[in-house]
């Protein structure tokens, strides 16, 4: 199960003076849903196109299913792609599009028709065979593009920002459909996206890319809770950063002095590689901070502050709290429940935190 289907070794690609891929190495495992996540221009689409065979790396090696892909044209690779704008052939029917790649295989009409029916059923487009491709909506085009690629049973399905052109509702629906489809067919999916939420909800593993390099490859949970560096932490979700100084190691752990929160004891494991005396940045997610309401009083770790700003999202409220005795402001997100009032601006509050969720950079 954990066989790598794609192995990338030191893949370099430049366009003129722009370095699109700066020595990318990674392994994508057979049967997983793998995402390439990063801001626009980070090289994720170039990497996908290099796997598909549309870009030749300047150096480095791409192996798919154990075979070196150097010099192998896109039409000979065991990959198929779903394009960002779907690239549906406008002069053909839905069946013509879905069966496009089968023509080469010379399967005979009955078999071809059967496979097309099956592929369309898979993407819930039964009965669309004779529809003119131009009359389809965006969501339907997306399904046709999926069926057209999956009908060839590729080893790897490559998806280039497939959901970015859809509206929010449809996008959320397609996210879970894509996930289910991937589980059903068992084919390795490699998805390129700039949308962190999309990458986190759909993927088994996520590779995060900046400036042509992969910075971290991990499960969505790990990416969120243990970002490899400041850049990843800033890109994924939102995080508060507080100035901190590493103190001495004790038997319980390492002391860390965090501005506004006071002296904490952190597990020595999570303080590494910093050592005593280092000035660091302590990152903590808004949901790991809690505004204490009266009935929840009496915890040891508490900081005082004043609500400087407030954003109400219906299910959640985000408070910007200025910490006592500092210029530091932290964002605290609170789930709105029946017995929690929405606090007015200027309220004095006490906040509490979970020291295990603090990450030092």
């Amino acid at each position, binding site marked *: 199960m954990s066989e790598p289907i794609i192995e990338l070794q030191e893949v370099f690609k430049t366009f003129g003076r722009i370095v699109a891929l700066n020595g990318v190495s990674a392994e994508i495992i057979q049967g997983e849903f793998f995402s390439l996540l990063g801001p626009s221009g980070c090289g994720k689409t170039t990497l996908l196109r290099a796997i598909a065979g549309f870009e030749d790396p300047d150096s480095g090696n791409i192996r798919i299913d154990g075979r070196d892909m150097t010099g192998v*044209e896109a039409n000979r690779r065991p990959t*198929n*792609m779903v*394009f960002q704008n779907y*690239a*549906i052939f406008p002069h053909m029917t839905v069946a013509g599009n879905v069966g496009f790649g089968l023509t080469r295989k010379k399967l005979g009409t009955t078999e071809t028709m059967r496979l097309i029916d099956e592929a369309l059923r898979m993407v819930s487009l039964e009965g669309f065979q004779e529809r003119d491709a131009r009359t389809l909506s*965006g969501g339907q085009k997306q399904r046709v593009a999926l069926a*057209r690629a999956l009908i060839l049973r590729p080893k790897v399905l490559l998806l280039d920002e497939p959901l970015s052109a859809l*509206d929010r509702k449809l996008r959320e629906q397609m996210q879970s459909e894509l996930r289910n489809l991937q589980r059903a067919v068992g084919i390795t999916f490699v998805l390129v996206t700039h949308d962190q939420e999309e990458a986190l909800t759909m993927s088994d593993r996520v590779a995060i890319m900046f400036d042509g390099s992969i910075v971290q490859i991990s499960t969505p949970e790990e990416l969120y809770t243990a970002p490899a560096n400041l850049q990843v932490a800033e890109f994924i979700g939102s995080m508060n950063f507080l100035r901190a100084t590493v103190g001495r190691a004790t038997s319980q752990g390492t002391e860390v002095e965090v501005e506004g929160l006071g002296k904490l004891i952190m597990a020595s494991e999570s303080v590494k590689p910093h050592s005593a005396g280092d000035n660091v940045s302590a990152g903590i997610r808004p949901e790991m901070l809690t505004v204490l309401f009266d009935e929840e009083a009496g915890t040891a770790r508490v900081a005082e502050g004043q609500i400087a700003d407030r954003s109400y999202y219906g299910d959640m409220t985000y408070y910007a709290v200025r910490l006592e005795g500092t210029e530091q402001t932290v964002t605290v997100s609170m789930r709105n429940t029946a017995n929690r009032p929405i606090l007015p601006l200027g309220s004095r509050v006490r906040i509490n935190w979970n020291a295990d969720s603090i990450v030092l950079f």
Partner: protein
Amino acid sequence: MMRGGFRFLTAYVAAYLLFLYAPVLLLPIFAFNDSRVVAFPLQGFTLDWFRLLLETEPLHAATRNSLIVASVAAFLSTAMGLCAARAATRHSFAGKKGIMGLIMVPLVLPEIIVGVSLLVVILQAGFNLNLWSIILGHVLICTPFCTVILSTAFSNLDRNLEEAAIDLGETKLTTFRRVILPLVMPGIMASILIAFTISLDEFIIAFFLSGTETTLPVYIWSQLRFPARLPSVMALGTVLLAISLILLVSAEYLRRRASDRSAAANAGGNF
């Protein structure tokens, strides 16, 4: 002040259109006029001049020549335009702007210069003047038009469609046949029709480069020396006018359909 300006502009447009189209309208009027003299007042309705066209043997030969020249020239210049347009829209290479510019130069080059220089070259090279020399000249002046029309068709084409076809296992050649050609076909038809129309009524180059066999416009010019034949020339002109109009309207129709098609192909992400 505004009203006066507006009235002046209306009058200007009316005069302009009259100047532009009145002479053309005179053609069909006199083609049906029952008189050898081309002058008002009109003498009555007749189809004699059209009948005379059917009986004039050299006219038929010239018509046949013109159709041959126009068909071959249209086909060749479209084929060349296709290559140029494809190169211009898909590839970047050294000196691309210069080369594309040189292809377009015949658009602005006086035809008389093209005609005279080709005549000199052909005679110096020891070739005879025949229909092929006319075709050569016509390909030269039609290719820029074909290149422009086909470049539009190609640039409206979504590049991802080609990559999608290759991704699905097609080669470059079969991709061209299965995806690109069908999508630019209306553009190709428009290009053929435009080139055909240009070649059909081109006079100066044909006049310089024709040997013993001439095309229709050259034949018409030769007939103008005989005033008695003027009404039948007008009948001929009427026929040509009708054909040209039909060709141009169909070419424009096809061109618009081509851009609709690629526009539909590009509208990938709507709801």
